[in-house]
């Protein structure tokens, strides 16, 4: 510390001291020290009074109580019973919270970017519908939205007895007519791939017209059987209505000669379609029956949640996974090799397609090889005091072996167990609870509304000149977006996007409103039961702090990669 005045005239002690006190640097340091001391004082006072009060009630803050038996149920938690400890309950809650946050961030990013681009769309309807939803979502409380999702959307699903099942439970009939339509459409697409626009219009209009005419004809035949019912398959050339129909078609076709050439393919396509559809109907060439398929449902949806197949890795999985990893490695290597080749020769190779093909080939061949190995012997189970071999399915059904044990007897690398209804519950299948879906949906949609605005602002922040320069260079629209607009928009988008990510993570604690067992809901119960509220809340705070810090660090790293270099 040197004083502001010079020592030439050797000023008095008082003057020198005053010079020190009014020195800006001195004031800064002392100010900081005083502020720090005040904070420490306030915190110790708070802490002491809290510990005194808690100790008086025999509740000294500690962590040992977390080893105690929890004694409460957590709905849908696997491998957790009330006999587990508080720590185990915490882990269940943490897993649920993390699951919500990870899938929430993924979902909201995708939906938010889409909505943001829609907000700038040239399509009036799309732009304004998106704007409408964004405004509603941004301006109503999240808690209300979670309740709406939970009660209105999710709980309006049918009870378990009447679950939606995909594909339908029992026999599904697929009409031959529909199959014929699909086959025709595929053939038409293949034939018209490289045809002129006029021919494409002609072909597709004809197909659409034929489908409409046939559907309409069947509908009329069933609605007014007296007048139209006998028309299906009549096939007689003496009927006057048949000739009127032919005449009308011919007339319309001739009319096509007098309209602008632009509309001609559409008109002639429509006439051809109507003619083909009409003739097929009149001569009864349309099968009324359908393909009968008996399929087991893969997904059930009801008011207790979404039930989907269980997927297990069997003891052969590792072997197959080696093939997959190898395929992945070769695919990547091929991708980079072809890219190098393209860069050096300038000749474009479809590198992604080749890489994916190699990967798929390894995956499929690996599956066939691994599944083709000789089947293991049947499991030995104890029956009437003796060990006998029994088929896996039977042993499972009789509950002589567990699902995990059965996996070493399967021949395929992956075992898929479809959900199966047993009375009023599901015997197998994983369940996503309505609480989980409602919370995830509400968080995703709510946060996406904010992200949409951020993305919109980010894209608008890129100067118009950038767009014009890219266009003038001949870049296509997708190249322009990818190479010019997005890299520049991202540097504006990322900082506020980080805030929204943090919001989503923290808002996930609203799970308690619909009793979803996230970390806050679980620790709240733990605190109430054990009386150790301070510790329980501290654990919750530390958990969210760590999650938030991870998100922040990740996003800061991403952000640093998108900043512009200037002088």
């Amino acid at each position: 510390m040197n004083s502001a005045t010079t020592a030439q005239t050797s000023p008095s002690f008082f003057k020198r001291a005053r010079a020190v006190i009014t020195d800006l640097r001195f004031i800064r340091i002392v100010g900081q020290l005083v502020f720090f001391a005040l904070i420490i004082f306030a915190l110790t006072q708070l802490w002491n009074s809290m510990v005194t009060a808690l100790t008086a009630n025999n509740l000294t803050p500690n962590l040992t109580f977390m080893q105690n038996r929890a004694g409460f149920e957590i709905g849908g938690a696997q491998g957790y019973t009330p006999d587990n400890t508080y720590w185990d309950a915490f882990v269940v809650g943490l897993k649920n919270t993390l699951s919500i946050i990870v899938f929430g961030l993924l979902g909201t990013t995708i939906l938010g970017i889409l909505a943001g681009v829609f907000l700038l769309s040239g399509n009036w309807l799309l732009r304004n519908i998106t704007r409408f939803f964004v405004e509603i979502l941004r301006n109503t409380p999240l808690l209300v939205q979670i309740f709406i999702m939970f009660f209105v959307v999710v709980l309006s699903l049918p009870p378990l007895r009447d679950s939606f099942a995909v594909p339908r439970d029992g026999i599904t009939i697929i009409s031959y007519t529909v199959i014929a339509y699909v086959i025709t459409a595929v053939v038409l697409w293949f034939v018209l791939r490289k045809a002129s626009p006029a021919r494409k219009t002609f072909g597709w209009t004809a197909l659409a017209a034929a489908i409409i005419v046939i559907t309409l004809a069947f509908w009329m035949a069933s609605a007014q059987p007296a007048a139209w019912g006998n028309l299906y398959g009549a096939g007689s050339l003496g009927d006057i209505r048949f000739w009127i129909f032919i005449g009308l078609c011919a007339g319309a076709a001739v009319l096509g000669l007098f309209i602008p050439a632009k509309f001609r393919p559409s008109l002639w396509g429509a006439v051809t379609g109507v003619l083909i559809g009409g003739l097929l109907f009149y001569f009864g060439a349309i099968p009324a029956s359908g393909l009968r398929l008996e399929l087991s449902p893969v997904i059930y949806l009801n008011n207790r949640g979404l039930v989907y197949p269980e997927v297990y890795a069997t003891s052969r999985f590792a072997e197959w996974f080696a093939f997959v990893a190898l395929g992945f490695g070769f695919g990547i290597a091929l991708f980079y090799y072809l890219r190098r080749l393209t860069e050096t020769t300038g000749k474009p190779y479809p590198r992604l397609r080749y890489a994916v093909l190699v990967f798929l080939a390894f995956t499929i061949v690996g599956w066939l090889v691994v599944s083709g190995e000789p089947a293991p012997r049947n499991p030995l189970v104890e029956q009437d005091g003796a060990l006998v071999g029994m088929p896996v399915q039977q042993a499972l059904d009789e509950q002589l072996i567990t699902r995990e044990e059965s996996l070493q007897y399967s021949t395929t690398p992956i075992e898929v167990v479809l959900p199966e209804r047993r009375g009023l519950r599901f015997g197998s299948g994983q369940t996503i609870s309505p609480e989980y879906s409602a919370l995830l949906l509400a968080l995703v949609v709510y946060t996406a509304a904010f992200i949409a605005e951020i993305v919109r602002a980010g894209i608008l922040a890129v100067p118009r000149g950038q767009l014009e320069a890219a266009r003038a260079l001949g870049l296509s629209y997708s190249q322009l977006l990818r190479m010019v607009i997005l890299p520049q928009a991202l540097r504006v988008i990322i900082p506020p996007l980080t805030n929204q990510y943090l919001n989503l993570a923290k808002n996930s604690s609203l799970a308690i409103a619909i009793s979803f067992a996230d970390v806050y809901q679980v620790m709240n119960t733990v605190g109430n039961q054990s009386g150790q509220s301070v510790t329980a809340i501290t654990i919750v705070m530390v958990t969210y702090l760590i999650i938030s810090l991870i998100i922040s660090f990740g996003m800061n790293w991403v952000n640093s990669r998108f900043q512009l270099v200037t002088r």
Partner: protein
Amino acid sequence: MTEEKNNPAGVEISAEPIIICDRVNKWFGEYHVLRDISITVAPQEVVVVIGPSGSGKSTFIRCINRLEEHQEGEIIVDGIAMGHDIRNIAAIRREIGMVFQQFNLFPHLTVLQNVMLAPTNVRRWSKEKAEAKARELLERVGIPEQAEKYPGQLSGGQQQRVAIARALAMEPKIMLFDEPTSALDPEMIKEVLDVMQELAKSGMTMVVVTHEMGFAREVADRVLFFDQGRLVESGTPDSLFDNPQHPRTKMFLSQIL
């Protein structure tokens, strides 16, 4: 359209025009910006467009590569008719390079990447070929040592020269300049004009909107004077500057010369 390739640089102007504008009309809402503009530009010709601000000169050259859409009339560039078909528009843009008043370099890419972006992605050249071309062009505009820098680290004049190199990298047949020196400090104007002059000498077809009358007089084959969306007068620089016919031209020239 292929004849000029065999024509040594700048010897004579071939008869077949490379840009044809026939009664081009454009409105911004109610405002009539371009009124019946009919102009042809021959290969290797240097055309300078002058006029007061708001006269439609910038809008006119932006119509030539479809940064603006004209509503009536016909524009044919290098034998390709400008329509609504994106393939035609893309083909025309490949043949035309453009330099803007605000440079519009891509700030997230280095100078070299800026110049290489279009050749590698639009022309699908190999990286080696594009880089060689880019370095050659940076040499030509006089800033080979700045290749690895970002646009934000360069002066205005250097940025504009990079922008010219970026446009030239696509090997265009035509170059459009939209007030290329208007955003520059006075001492940087000359370095950009020198590059443009050299380009004109090498036989590039150029349409230049500028307020640099000295450049127009020295380099242009033809000067067009625009006012209120109309092509008022055109002629060689000497005849237009020294002996303007139209009163509007006289007034404009008396104000700026």
